[in-house]
């Protein structure tokens, strides 16, 4: 059968002639092959609610992107080795010398500072994002898994920040990482194995930097990428939670917002440039951790404090009085384990369990699709602010001996102030709720 069907032939020939203004536009090269319009049809019209606090998670994702790109650039120069080499007549660890080289190139130094600042911004954005989700109660059904993955992302980002401390191999790096090694080893039974695994044998050893470097540039970023993708897929699948006003405007079961493509994408693009611009300004004018501030490692220990995002653990470590700990057969629980491993693990664990600790999540069978005004849930607001006050007091506690307080005084402050704050917030919002009555109460669940 050589000849094609005559009817088809004639239709194809006739079309270009008869078609004028009503003619469908010729599909582009990519469209012909990939049918992108079908993709756009399916996902591009997804509605994304707009609220000023809905950009915090995106800010974290953008910071991550910037961290990856700047990190790749830095990795092209950086050498993960502690072997001593001669640089301008001075014996220096190779890693330190390579960071010195980065600092000596203005453009590379800017990128290093952007990398450092982006880490701070990413962690701050994740925390603020978590506060927004917590105080508006949107971690509840159906978004428990999204919250769980979010806590995991926070933990991995903190870990990435800590491992990043080690890389410049200055006096600060060696001290801070050495403390991390001590904490890892303090874990009962498996501590020594874990310490050797993650720090490349007894720290500091020649194996330490290659291992920490691989963890910092491959293991953690890939894990973050995977978990973040899952986190975003869940948002796409379950739809974003909505601000309260959407309940009046949109039909039940519908999402009020702007379309993913092009409107939301445009906003995200603007945010990318805003974050990048802000980071570049910070990097250019506010130096972070210049090598000269600590110098190469020495036998002495500089008085180091970790960055703000780990300072609460540091504060708690300082609060542990002498003689705390116990030995049960082969298991030794020391003050380092209690303060540096068990305490932060319980804080992260409590965060993880939030959706299951919230009783309203069990009582109400419908889905929580709208942000709840924080004062409407006095207990949650009080516990949340109380927990924040506790962390703030731990930051304060990391300076207690410099301020001249005794251990007893600072313990009293750390324990009492958060309780007072929580009690005050609880009674205030309780009274407000009672006064307004049930009329003004907003139901954050979906009617559908």
């Amino acid at each position: 059968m050589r000849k094609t069907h005559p009817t088809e032939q004639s239709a194809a020939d006739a079309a270009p002639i008869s078609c004028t203004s009503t003619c469908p536009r010729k599909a582009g090269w990519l469209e012909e092959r990939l049918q992108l319009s079908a993709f756009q049809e399916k996902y591009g019209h997804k509605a994304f609610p707009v609220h000023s606090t809905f950009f915090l998670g995106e800010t974290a994702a953008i910071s991550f992107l910037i961290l990856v790109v700047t990190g790749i650039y830095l990795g092209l120069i950086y050498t993960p080795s502690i072997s001593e080499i001669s640089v301008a007549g001075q014996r220096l660890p190779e890693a330190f010398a390579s960071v010195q080289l980065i600092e000596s190139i203005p453009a590379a130094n800017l990128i290093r500072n952007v990398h450092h600042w982006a880490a701070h911004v990413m962690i701050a954005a994740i925390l603020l994002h978590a506060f927004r989700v917590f105080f508006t109660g949107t971690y509840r059904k159906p978004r428990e898994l999204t919250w769980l993955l979010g806590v995991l992302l926070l933990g991995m980002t903190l870990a990435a920040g800590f491992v990043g401390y080690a890389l410049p191999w200055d006096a600060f790096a060696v001290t801070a990482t050495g403390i991390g090694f001590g904490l890892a080893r303090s874990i009962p039974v498996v501590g020594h194995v874990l310490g050797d695994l993650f720090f490349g044998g007894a720290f500091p050893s020649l194996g330490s930097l290659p291992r920490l470097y691989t963890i910092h540039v491959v293991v953690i970023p890939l894990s973050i990428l995977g978990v973040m993708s899952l986190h975003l897929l869940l948002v796409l699948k379950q739809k974003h939670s909505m601000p309260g006003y959407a309940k009046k405007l949109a039909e039940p079961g519908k999402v009020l917002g702007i379309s993913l493509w092009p409107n939301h994408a445009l906003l995200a693009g603007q945010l990318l440039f805003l974050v990048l611009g802000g980071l570049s300004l910070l990097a250019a004018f506010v130096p972070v951790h210049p090598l000269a501030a600590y110098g190469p490692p020495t036998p002495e220990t500089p008085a180091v404090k970790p960055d703000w995002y780990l300072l609460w653990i540091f504060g708690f470590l300082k609060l542990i009085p002498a003689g705390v700990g116990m030995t049960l057969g082969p298991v030794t629980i020391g003050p380092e384990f209690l303060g540096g491993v068990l305490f932060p693990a319980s804080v992260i664990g409590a965060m993880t369990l939030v959706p299951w600790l919230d009783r309203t999540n069990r009582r109400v069978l419908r889905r929580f699709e709208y942000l709840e005004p924080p004062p409407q849930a006095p207990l949650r607001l009080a516990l949340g602010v109380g927990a924040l006050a506790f962390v703030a007091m731990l930051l304060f506690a990391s300076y207690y001996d410099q301020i001249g307080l005794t251990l007893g005084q600072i313990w009293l402050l750390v324990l009492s102030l958060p309780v007072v704050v929580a009690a005050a917030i609880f009674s205030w919002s309780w009274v407000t709720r009672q006064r307004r009555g049930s009329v003004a109460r907003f139901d954050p669940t979906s009617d559908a």
Partner: protein
Amino acid sequence: MKHILTPDKTASPGNDHDHPSSLEEPLRQPRDRRRTVLGWMVGIAAGAFAVSFAVPAAVLKALMLDKPGIAIGDVLTYVDTTTGGQPGQPFKASDLPIGGSAQLFPMGKADNQDSLVLVVRIAAGDGVGGLVAYSAICTHLGCAVNEKLNRDNLILCPCHGSVYDPVDHAAVRRGPSDRALPGIPIADGPNGSVIANGLFDGPIGPQ
């Protein structure tokens, strides 16, 4: 179009709800058991696959620094110029006033942080008389303790504020540390220098 395999349908094709349960049971059971066994086998295989990663993880060795520790007879030398000496030059017992302290390394072993020694003069005396020597590595998390004593003539760790008493065998005076700094016997060496006369009497740093 969704294709869902319900256990009912696959277990007994053509199963009808009118069937009495006594007839249903013999049909369902062998297939269910096979599925359970298969499920277990898949689970065990997946678990074994995951566990097999533990072996390469456990043998992940790394290059270690060759770090000789302190030995009897090692001459103690200054670490830096803070207390008036020159780095690498032998420490002289007569250099320290009462309440003075210095960080020292055994000669030629400055690569090993664990052999860092803190000597403190707690009383007047000739040679090593009135001197005490401890490991300078904090037993809390392995920071080096401050070279200078604090206002109360106690040894302070700059990291988390542990305090040790040099007069009382470096016993812990304030937490978070829970173990005294290990001590080390010292003796007079040639030309007024000081030598190690034994090994540390406890493990160095956090355990």
